[in-house]
Each structure stands twice: as structure tokens, then as C-alpha cells.
């Protein structure tokens, strides 16, 4: 109750907006129409039904009979990625599905032991979601899935809250900047869409955002045991949620180093800090090794080994690969490996909003406008950094943490993409805009940073423009998705 009373009113309103947003997306997206949602749900269901982990590589079937029957009978399978398809949405279909469900034999929910491609993910998110799953196991599947999706709400709201807090750390208690930063995150269509489906990405986003906040607080306040434990605990949670959570580890190291340089704790405090951080991470790793790997799986389902074996890594080729991701090739450059998939596809189209199984898109001019606005934004960030270099220099520990989080995340994605293209005959670049969502708080912060640098009245009005555009974009995303599936 006290926490509710202490919640600043603008933040409370943003949390209300986020809740509305998530529920609206849940309504707009039919069952299993989020990216890989069928596999993520199958993982949750298997954990919920059997209290054990599915396998990424072996097993009779990746989905339970119950799930497979629903996907098949309601024509939800052909719906995935095929714009012309529609589900079996009539009352006659529902009646016949109910009949089908009632005749499924015992064990139809618990036989999806694998191979499940998502089983290479660590189990934290799935174990967490298995709890409400189990509590609602008496519900038929369609109801169960709809309600289960709502249990992503705490993760989504956590991303909003911690973005607000990050803005507070960086800009001080300036409510309009905090509202702008957290509002940009709340209204980001791709984030809300991903929060409304069963997928570990939203949990990863929440943990990474919370981690970034604690890391920033750590470098400002100093190495209190509680803060170190929180930061390392959240880094551990991120790594136990998804392989992409590993980016928090170098950021944690940098944050601890910056804390030490800034605050110069005594040797005893340094030892306690280091031990706390290392102990937390190692403890998480041991728990993962002992309980978190699926049957026959290596770390992250063997992905680490798979990505780093095969074709030899070439630094030159990698740098050229990154360069050509953003810019046209220079004369004399070897063509980039893989399909033509670069900045526009990742940072614009699939970051701001590509829904369903990537077949629901805004009109081309919307992405073009977003690309122009983003380019102006990037130039503005640079310009503002130059203008405010003294302020940034004074706040060097926070700047280092933010920059490390940004570059580590993006570099990691490029590395994984490059290695994947070397091992899968250059077919699948394994990089998409929603993989940037763990650093969505930096998007909000960048918006507030740039607009906050404008003269006061202009800044307020620009904030109004940004938030209005966000509302229109988010409602449009929900609208076009709803029409695609139901009209």
C-alpha cells in the first residue's frame, strides 16, 4: 500500500497505460501467433506438467498432443507468417474443437518432451511461468494461454519502472524527462507486442533494464553489499533467462571497476564486493549446470559450442560484415555474407514494429519516416553529447556503464549473427530488432536526453509530439494486427 502511495503519479499513469497496452495486444494476437510462441509455450507446458525440462535435440514430439491438436484444428499453423491465411474462427469451429479437446487421452498435455528448439534457453522464465500455468491447469487451452500471457505483465511493467528509475539516476528527479523516457518505452509497439505473447524476451528485457539501473546506482552511490548483490543477482537472472543475457556480465565487470575507481573502497570492502559479485554469478552458473540444462544439453543447449566451431573467425571479415550492415560496401570490399539484412531491417522495421510471425507490418512510408526520425535522433545524440561533454565527463562512470551496455549488446548480436551465417550456409542472419529490446531503456533515455537538451518550453512541446506519435504508432500496430487476424 505504501509503495502504491509512493509511486509518482506520472509513473502510475504510465503503468496503467502499459497494462491497457498489453491487454489490447493480447486480444489482437490469436493463440501462438507470436514469434516462436508455440515452442515457448510448449516449454512452459512441459515444465508445468512434468516439473522437468524438455530437450532441444531429442524426443517424440516438440509440442504436446493438446497443443498440436489445437494448432491443427483451428488452422493456427498455416496462419503463421502467411498473410492470406485466417484461423478457423467460427462458432462451429469452437464447438468442434471443444469436442476434440474433451476426447484427448490422459497424458496429452505432458508428452511434448522435445525436440524443442527453445529448450536451449535456460529455464528461469519458463519455471516462473509454469507456476501460473499450473494454477490454471483446469482451464481449456485457449483460455489458459490467454490468461497465461497476462502473467508477462510484471516483466513489462518492470521494464517501464526501471527505465523511469534509470532516467532519474541520469537526469535527476525531473519528472517530465522521466515520463518521456519511460513513456517512449511504454509506447514502443514491438515491446508491448512481445510482452503480450509467451516468449522469454520480455523477462530478459525486464532483468536487463533492472540490472542497468542497479549498475548505474552502484557507480554513483558506491559498492554497498546490497547494491552489488542486486546488480550481480540481476545479471545472473538475465543469464539464466536467455543466452543474450550474457552481455550483462562484461557490463557488471565494467560497473564494478568504475565503482572501485570512483569510490576507492578499502581493501576489505573491495574483497567483499568482488566476492559477492563473483559468488552470485558462480552460484547461478552452478544452479544452471546442476538443474537448468535440458536432457543431453550443453550450456545454452550447445549453442555456445555450435556457434564457435566450424568456419574460422576472421577479424577482417567480421569488421567488414559489421560495416556493411550499416553502410554500402566500399570499393574493393568483399560482399557481405548472408542475405541483404541490415540496419533498416533490424533497427527500424523489426525494432519499431513487425508483428505476428513477421508478416504484419506498417506501410513502407511509416518505416521510412521512422528511419529519418531515428537518423535525426542519432545525430542529435551525438550533437548533444558534444554540447554537454563537460557534464558527461563529470558523470563518466555512468556514461561508461551506459556505453558498455550499448556496445556490448550490439557487438554481441553482430558476433552471433556472423558466426551463425558461417555455420548455416549464410541463410539465416539470426538477428532481428526484438533482440535489441533488452536495451530498450537506452532508447527511452536517448529520447529524453536529446529532447531534454532543447530550450525548456520547446523541450516540453517536443515531448508532447513524441508521446503523441507513440500513442498513434502503438494503437496503429494493434489495429493492423487485429485486422490481419480477425477481419
Amino acid at each position: 500500500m505504501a509503495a502504491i502511495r509512493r509511486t509518482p503519479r506520472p509513473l502510475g499513469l504510465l503503468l496503467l497505460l502499459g497494462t491497457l497496452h498489453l491487454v489490447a495486444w493480447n486480444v489482437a494476437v490469436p493463440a501462438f501467433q507470436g514469434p516462436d510462441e508455440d515452442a515457448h509455450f510448449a516449454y512452459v507446458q512441459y515444465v508445468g506438467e512434468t516439473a522437468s525440462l524438455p530437450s532441444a535435440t531429442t524426443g517424440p514430439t516438440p509440442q504436446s498432443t493438446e497443443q498440436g491438436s489445437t494448432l491443427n484444428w483451428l488452422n493456427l499453423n498455416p496462419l503463421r507468417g502467411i498473410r492470406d491465411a485466417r484461423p478457423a474462427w467460427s462458432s462451429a469451429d469452437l464447438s468442434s474443437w471443444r469436442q476434440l479437446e474433451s476426447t484427448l487421452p490422459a497424458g496429452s498435455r505432458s508428452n511434448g518432451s522435445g525436440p524443442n528448439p527453445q529448450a536451449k534457453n535456460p529455464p528461469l522464465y519458463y519455471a516462473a511461468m509454469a507456476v501460473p500455468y499450473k494454477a490454471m491447469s483446469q482451464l481449456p487451452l485457449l483460455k489458459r494461454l490467454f490468461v497465461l500471457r497476462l502473467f508477462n505483465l510484471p516483466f513489462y511493467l518492470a521494464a517501464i519502472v526501471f527505465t523511469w528509475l534509470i532516467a532519474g539516476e541520469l537526469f535527476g528527479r525531473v519528472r517530465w524527462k522521466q515520463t518521456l523516457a519511460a513513456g517512449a518505452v511504454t509506447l514502443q509497439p514491438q515491446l508491448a507486442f512481445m510482452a503480450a505473447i509467451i516468449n522469454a524476451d520480455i523477462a530478459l528485457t525486464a532483468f536487463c533494464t533492472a540490472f542497468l539501473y542497479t549498475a548505474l546506482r552502484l557507480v554513483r552511490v558506491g559498492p554497498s553489499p546490497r547494491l552489488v548483490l542486486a546488480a550481480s543477482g540481476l545479471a545472473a537472472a538475465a543469464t539464466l533467462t536467455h543466452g543474450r543475457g550474457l552481455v550483462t556480465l562484461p557490463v557488471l565487470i565494467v560497473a564494478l571497476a568504475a565503482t572501485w575507481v570512483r569510490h576507492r573502497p578499502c581493501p576489505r570492502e573491495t574483497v567483499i564486493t568482488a566476492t559477492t559479485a563473483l559468488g552470485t554469478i558462480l552460484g547461478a552458473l552452478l544452479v544452471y549446470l546442476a538443474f537448468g540444462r535440458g536432457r543431453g544439453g550443453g550450456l545454452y543447449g550447445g549453442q555456445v559450442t555450435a556457434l564457435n566451431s566450424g568456419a574460422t573467425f576472421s577479424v577482417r571479415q567480421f569488421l567488414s560484415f559489421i560495416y556493411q550492415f550499416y553502410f554500402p560496401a566500399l570499393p574493393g570490399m568483399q560482399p557481405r555474407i548472408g542475405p541483404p539484412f541490415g540496419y533498416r531491417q533490424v533497427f527500424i522495421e523489426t525494432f519499431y514494429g513487425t508483428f505476428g510471425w513477421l508478416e504484419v507490418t506498417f506501410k513502407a512510408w511509416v518505416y521510412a519516416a521512422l528511419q529519418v526520425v531515428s537518423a535525426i535522433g542519432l545525430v542529435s545524440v551525438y550533437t548533444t553529447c558534444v554540447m554537454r561533454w563537460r557534464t558527461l565527463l563529470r558523470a563518466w562512470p555512468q556514461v561508461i556503464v551506459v556505453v558498455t551496455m550499448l556496445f556490448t549488446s550490439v557487438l554481441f548480436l553482430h558476433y552471433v549473427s556472423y558466426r551463425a551465417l558461417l555455420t548455416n550456409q549464410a541463410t539465416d542472419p539470426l538477428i532481428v530488432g526484438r533482440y535489441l529490446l533488452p536495451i530498450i531503456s537506452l532508447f527511452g533515455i536517448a529520447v529524453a536526453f536529446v529532447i531534454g537538451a532543447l530550450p525548456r518550453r520547446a523541450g516540453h512541446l517536443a515531448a508532447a509530439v513524441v508521446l503523441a506519435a507513440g500513442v498513434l504508432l502503438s494503437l496503429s500496430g494493434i489495429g493492423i494486427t487485429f485486422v490481419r487476424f480477425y477481419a
Partner: protein
Amino acid sequence: MRNVRRRIASLTAAEQAAGLMALLLLLGAIIWVFPFLARKQTGIAGVPGPGSALPYTYRLVPGSRACMNAVTLEPSGHLAAFVVIPTRRKSPEALRIELLLRAETYRERATTPTGYRGGPIALPVTPPRRAAIGDVCWVNRGRHAVLLNGTTDPRTVTRSHMLVDSIAKPGSASLTFYDRRSRSLLSKLGDAFNHVSNLTDRLLPPALLWVFLVVTLLAAPIVAIAALHSALSEDDADGSKP
């Protein structure tokens, strides 16, 4: 004009920002939201078999019958769209395909028009009064063999199975039912909400969805405006924050 400017200048920062946001959202609603809701388009009544980039064809010799089972026949499915291709490209003869629809007590029969030489066609049919699950059959009443378009693409294969002359065939035919009425999205919302309700196992009744729609369309902009207004008011009260 000067009065308007003076009035705007006399507003607080919070009021100006909120006012601008409200104006932009109203403009956005007028330019995009209302036209989006009002734009008329052909309605899809059902897609028992979507098309695919990997087509497959079912060969129907004269008299052959291809049947697709477990097809939902909806009251709004006035047009049955499919593709038939002649095997003889330069044949002067028109094709004659009979479409049979059957479910519970419902029976319907339709034939391609005179002069049909193959390709995509949307055949008018009288749909059933209520949604029902039944069969759709194509019978080649012409004098030459034809190919019925379908797909065996695993991504698009539906629950329906194909039989050609009682022999099981892979995949399913590409078939879409359209509503012959061109309707706006607003007028189709009732049907769309029924679809949502059915696909959530009636967890969300249509009446609740109507309420939710109104709440979302009104509340989302209002709450966003209120958040910025509240933030700026708080900063003003705290003493002119930057």
C-alpha cells in the same frame, strides 16, 4: 489571432504540452484512425486453404471429383475463390467446373460461368444460415483435364484433407471464401469480435470487447496526456525544473 496567442502564452507548460498532445492525437485520429475504420474493403469469410509460394496441383480428368473435408462454411461466405488451370493452354474450349458444398443439412451447387477459360475465379454461392463444418468438392464437367491449385507446403497445410476420386492426396486445395459485400472495418467489428471470442473459447464475450475497444481508444490517449501533464505540473510545483 493575437488574443489566441495571448491565451496560449498564459497557459502553464503542462497545459500547453497537454493541449498540443491532444491536438496531435485528434489530428491523427481524423487523418488515420477514422479513415482506417471507415475504409471499405472486401471481407474474408474464411480461408480453408491459403495460397502458397510452393503450389501443388490436383489433376482432374473429365468427371473427376476432388473433395476437401473439414471446411468451415460461413453465413458470410458468398464467394468461393479458387484457381483452376487448363492442361491444354491453347484450347478454345471453356472449362466447366462444378462446385459442391455440403454440411449437415446444407447443400449448395455452383458452376463456373460460360466462357471460363481457367485462372482465379470467385464463384457466387448461397452460404448456410449458420456456420457449419463440411466438405467442398470440385467436379470437372468439361471435356478436358484441368489442374486444381493447392499446396503441400508444410507451413500452409490446414486441417483439411484432399481426396481425388476417393484417393487420398497430399496437402489441400487453395480456397478462400469472401463476403460479397464491401464493408467498412467498423461495420465488420461485430463479426471480428465474435472471432476473437471464439478463439479465446468465449473467455472474452463480444460485449466486453466492445467496451474494451472504447476504453482503449479513449483511455490510451487520455492517460498518456495525463501522464505528461502530471509530470510537468509536478516539476512546476517543485520549482521550475529544467
